[in-house]
C-alpha cells in the first residue's frame, strides 16, 4: 500500500531531505500543510519529481493521487526539471497590451522552444507568467531572476544570450 511506511522511495537521504522532514515535522504531519510542504520541497529540490511526491504522500498520509492532483493544479509547482537558465515573460494585461507576445515569440524562434518548455540541451527554459505586478513598467521579462522593465524583444534576447554565454565561458 502506498501509505504503509518503511518502503523505500527514490528520494536520496541527504541534507535536503532532512530539511524537508523538519518542515513536515514543524507542520505536525498535518494533511492541511500539503501546499506549504510542496513549496518547501520545490525550494529545496528545484522541482517535484514523482519520488518526491510519493515521499510526501507517505509522510502526510495522503493518497498519492491527491498529492499529484494538488501539485499539478497550481502553476507554480514544476514537475519537470527546468533549464539551467530561465527566462520568464510576463503576460499580464499591461504587458500583453504593450507587446509581450512579441518577446515570447522572439525567444521561441531564436532558441527553437515553446513556452513552458526547455531546450533539448537543457540550457534554457521559457515560461510565461500572469502578471509579476510591475505593470507600470510593462512589458516585463525576468532573466535568471533579474527583471527587465519596458523590455523590447532585443533587450531580452541580448540578456538571455549574455547569461548563456557567461555560463559557456565558465564551463571552459
Amino acid at each position, binding site marked *: 500500500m502506498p501509505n504503509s511506511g518503511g518502503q523505500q522511495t527514490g528520494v536520496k537521504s541527504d541534507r535536503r531531505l532532512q530539511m524537508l522532514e523538519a518542515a513536515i515535522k514543524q507542520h505536525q504531519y498535518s494533511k492541511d500543510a500539503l501546499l506549504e510542504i510542496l513549496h518547501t520541497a520545490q525550494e529545496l529540490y528545484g522541482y517535484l519529481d514523482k519520488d518526491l511526491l510519493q515521499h510526501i*504522500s507517505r509522510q502526510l498520509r495522503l*493518497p498519492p*493521487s491527491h498529492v499529484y492532483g494538488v501539485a499539478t493544479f497550481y502553476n507554480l509547482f514544476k514537475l519537470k526539471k527546468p533549464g539551467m537558465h530561465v527566462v520568464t515573460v510576463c503576460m499580464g494585461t499591461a504587458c500583453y497590451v504593450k507587446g509581450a507576445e512579441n518577446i515570447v515569440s522572439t525567444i521561441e524562434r531564436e532558441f527553437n522552444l515553446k513556452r513552458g518548455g526547455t531546450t533539448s540541451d537543457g540550457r534554457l527554459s521559457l515560461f510565461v507568467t500572469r502578471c509579476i505586478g510591475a505593470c507600470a513598467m510593462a512589458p516585463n521579462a525576468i532573466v535568471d531572476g533579474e527583471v527587465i522593465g519596458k523590455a523590447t524583444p532585443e533587450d531580452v534576447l541580448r540578456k538571455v544570450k549574455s547569461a548563456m554565454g557567461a555560463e559557456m565561458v565558465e564551463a571552459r
Partner: protein
Amino acid sequence: MSKPVELTIDGKKVTAKEGETILEAARRNGLYIPALCYLEGVSSFGGCRVCVVELKGSPRVFASCVTPVTGGMEVVTDSEKLRRYRRWAVELLLAERPHVCSVCVANGSCELQQLATELGVDHLRVDREWTDYEVDLTHERFAYDPNRCILCTRCIRVCDEVEGVHTLDLMLRGKNSKVIFDLDENWGFSRSCTSCGKCSASCPVGALYVKGKPLSEVKKKDLVSFIMERRSEK
C-alpha cells in the same frame, strides 16, 4: 429528527427533509430532473450543470443536486431557458472530447447519449476536440479511455467515499483536467487500487469499463446507493 420542509416543485406541493437537496426531494417525490454527475450514495459535485433549475424570485439558475431545499421555495424544473442551458451543457460535453458513439462500449447504455436524445441535441454547434489521450489497458480486468471521460468525478467520489481508497483523483485543471490513478500511473501498476470495479460500475459513459463485457452488464448505477444503504443499516 430534522423537521420537514414544504416547497413546491413545478407547482406541485412536496415535503422534503431538512438539508436535502432539490434533486433528492424531487426524485423522492417521483419528479424527474435530468442529471449527470449526480450519483446517489456519494456526495454531490455540482459540476455538469445538467440538473439546473430555476427558483422563483431569482434571476439565476441553480444546480439542483447541490442546492438545499428551504421552506416555501418554488422550484421550476422545466422551461425554455433550462432546456437551452441543459442542451449547451450536453453539447459542450460531447464536443469536449471525441465522443464517437458508434465505436464506444457504452453505445446504447450511455447516460450522456441518452441525455442528448432526450434534450434534442441532434448536432453540435461548436467544433469538436479530437484529443489523443492514450487508452490505458494495463489493468487485467479494466480499461480506461480518457478520451471518453466527461470529468464528472463519479469514479473519484465512489473510490474515495465508498471503497475508501482514493486511488483516483484529478490532475491538472481546466480543460486539461484528467482522471488519474495514484501519481498518474497506469492502472495496472496502481498500488492502491483494490480492483473492486465500483468506478467502472458508476461511470456514466464509456471511459471506465470492464474488458470484454458489454457495458449494459457492467453498469450498475444503483450499486453505490445499495452499498451505502446496507452500511447504514449495520
